[in-house]
């Protein structure tokens, strides 16, 4: 087992000049983020653009979006194991690597948002006092930690078997695969409930929130996976079938259609007979009291999502990889805007006492966020590197049987 870990780690750091440049680039961004965070630690969260009025900002926006990415990364698991799609099975482990990176980044975005990260042990059951099951934040911590564990353990078992030249025993890990699927839905549902639970914030206090979150996750997640798979196909020898990409693109098309329908349903309810509860939506789309900082972003998001849904819904367009890439990039940014800053921030505007007070993230927030994103990409790069090395048989336990290299990865 130790051997496996060491060999896996060695594989992570074996590569050409381009690979090392890539790692160095990411590490530099992480270091800059750490420096910005150190400054924040020293002075307090005053260095952010947040205020008593808008008490969550860029960090929690990215957290919300990343939970969606994490949830949808396991999406690949469903066709792979339920419908026994061999082509999808080959890239399932990539999806789980993405899930690990996204969960870690999501958790870090919450940690950098804390006023007292030094007291994080107060969350530990036993040592601290964990307000479970009352607090939705307690639920979120629990499901995210569990999800991280599942997405580390399942691929570790599968890779270990490959490393030992054994076929993984489906019966042994399939129950965990099924669990991971439901768990994926749960992490995003719980994150939606975290917001929807607040009767103080009519913008979030909606039953449609969890379905919307799931739908948009099934857009942004596959968009990212498609882009990652296309990159991996180019830079590695890992076999990635076009059929996998086609399936993902189709899932994206349906999910984006449903998402846009949900947006329309909410806009109708808000504006047909407009009440005071629609104030945040009005602020978001049209501005309130002459303040409209989010207006350009939400309209841009809407435009991007509409263009993406047109490309994805027309077969002849979706099947051209170049257009598909465009749709993926547009939808990824579109959902990031809609579900990040376009969702978290307007919940605070106007305040429960009717004050319209705007929020602009500071350079510290941007820099810390870039650092966390870079760390997530770094984690994924290393995991994918090791995974591909083991799956393609480049790294194997040194036994006699390994002389007969296995022909195909599973």
């Amino acid at each position, binding site marked *: 087992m130790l051997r496996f870990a060491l060999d896996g780690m060695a594989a992570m750091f074996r590569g050409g000049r381009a690979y090392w440049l890539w790692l160095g680039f990411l590490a530099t961004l992480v270091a800059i983020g750490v420096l910005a965070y150190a400054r924040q630690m020293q002075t307090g969260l*005053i260095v952010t653009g947040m205020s008593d009025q808008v008490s969550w900002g860029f960090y929690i926006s990215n957290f919300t979006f990343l939970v969606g990415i994490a949830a949808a990364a396991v999406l690949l698991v469903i066709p792979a194991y339920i419908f026994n799609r061999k082509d999808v099975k080959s890239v399932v482990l990539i999806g789980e690597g993405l899930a690990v990176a996204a969960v870690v980044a999501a958790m870090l975005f919450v940690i950098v948002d804390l*006023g007292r990260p030094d007291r994080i042990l107060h*969350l530990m059951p036993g040592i601290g*006092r*964990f307000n479970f099951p009352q607090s*939705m934040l307690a639920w979120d*911590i629990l499901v995210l930690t569990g999800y991280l564990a599942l997405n580390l353990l399942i691929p570790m078992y599968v890779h270990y078997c490959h490393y030992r030249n054994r076929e993984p025993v489906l019966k042994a890990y399939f129950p965990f695969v099924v669990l991971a699927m439901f768990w994926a839905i749960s992490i995003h549902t719980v994150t939606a409930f975290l917001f929807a639970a607040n009767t103080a914030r009519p913008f979030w206090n909606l039953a449609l929130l969890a379905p919307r979150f799931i739908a948009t996750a099934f857009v942004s997640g596959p968009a990212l996976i498609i882009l990652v798979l296309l990159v991996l196909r180019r830079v590695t020898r890992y076999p990635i079938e076009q059929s996998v990409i086609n399936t993902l693109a189709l899932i994206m098309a349906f999910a984006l259609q449903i998402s846009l329908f949900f947006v329309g349903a909410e806009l109708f309810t808000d504006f047909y007979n407009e009440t005071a509860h629609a104030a945040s939506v009005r602020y978001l789309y049209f501005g309130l009291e002459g303040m409209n900082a989010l207006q350009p972003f939400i309209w841009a998001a809407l435009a991007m999502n509409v263009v993406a849904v047109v490309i994805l819904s027309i077969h002849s367009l979706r099947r051209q990889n170049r257009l598909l890439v465009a749709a993926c990039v547009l939808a990824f940014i579109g959902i990031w805007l809609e579900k990040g800053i376009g969702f978290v921030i307007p919940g605070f505007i106007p305040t429960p006492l*009717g004050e319209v007070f705007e929020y602009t993230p500071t350079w510290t927030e941007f820099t810390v966020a870039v650092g966390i994103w870079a760390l997530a990409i770094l984690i994924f790069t290393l995991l994918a590197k090791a995974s591909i090395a083991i799956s393609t048989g480049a790294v194997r336990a040194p036994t006699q049987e390994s002389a007969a290299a296995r022909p195909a990865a599973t």
Partner: protein
Amino acid sequence: MMKPQPPTESEAGFDTYRRKFLGNVVKAAGAGVAATATAAWGGSTFVDAMGGFFQDHYQRMSPDEIAAALERIERRAARDYGVDIRCEDTKPLPGTVFGYALNISKCKGYRDCVSACVRENNIGRDSQVQYIRVLEMDEGTLNLESANHYYDPETVPSEGKYYMPVQCMQCDNPPCVKACPTKATWKDPDGIVVIDYDWCIGCRYCMAACPYWARHFNWSKPELGPEDINPDTNYLGNRPRPVGVVEKCHYCTQRTRKGRQPACQEACPTGARIFGNLLDPDSEIRYVLANKKVFRLKEELGAEPKFWYFTD
């Protein structure tokens, strides 16, 4: 869970004695280390920094541990602000649930309650945190969206306006308490929602949950000059707060749990504020609730605030 156990006279005396004794022991121990390691540990001594780090939740601390925590708070205030403060652990009074009623016919928007509250509760002066927000409302509407938060208190009352102060309503079903992931905030037996500032992790979920915008965050270390400090403080109330934690109105527990009025009521020049024990049938607040047309803000949200508005 919290048990309402007000100390008897003799217990209180013994407690003070023990605190002094323990305090001296810790001071003696601390001085030794401080000689070698000052300035480091965020302006704290090594012993205090460690003591603070390992400090337990208020409701789980033994009387000795609470005494040690209070001593640490006093030492920290002396170091940070150069002022000798007294920090006590004021327990809730038995048979008491506090409630507040505010006569909006009388309130003229002078904001004397706001400034009294800031002084009494050691609220940072530059941060613009205020536990009470007085809203200038248009006559004939209760719509908060049209309220003016930043009117000039020198020119009030303005024509066609009325004034509605909003502060923590000490909800009986507080959404903020439910939200807190670490149980750092809870409702004490006298109905006051308090915060253990040494346990809060600063996630600010409670701020998102509060329908009355009553919770405020220390985005930086509260700025207070030595002359700004009110030295009579308590653990769950007005002691100087650390950076990175949430705070809010606590009906002046340092005063009201000793039978005094909250500072806002004392400062109000118009007599608009009625504060008292809801369990006492002869109290003024019970008279108001029984005889005036009272209403509560956002009652439909079900948080059951213990803060009523009424008119003459």
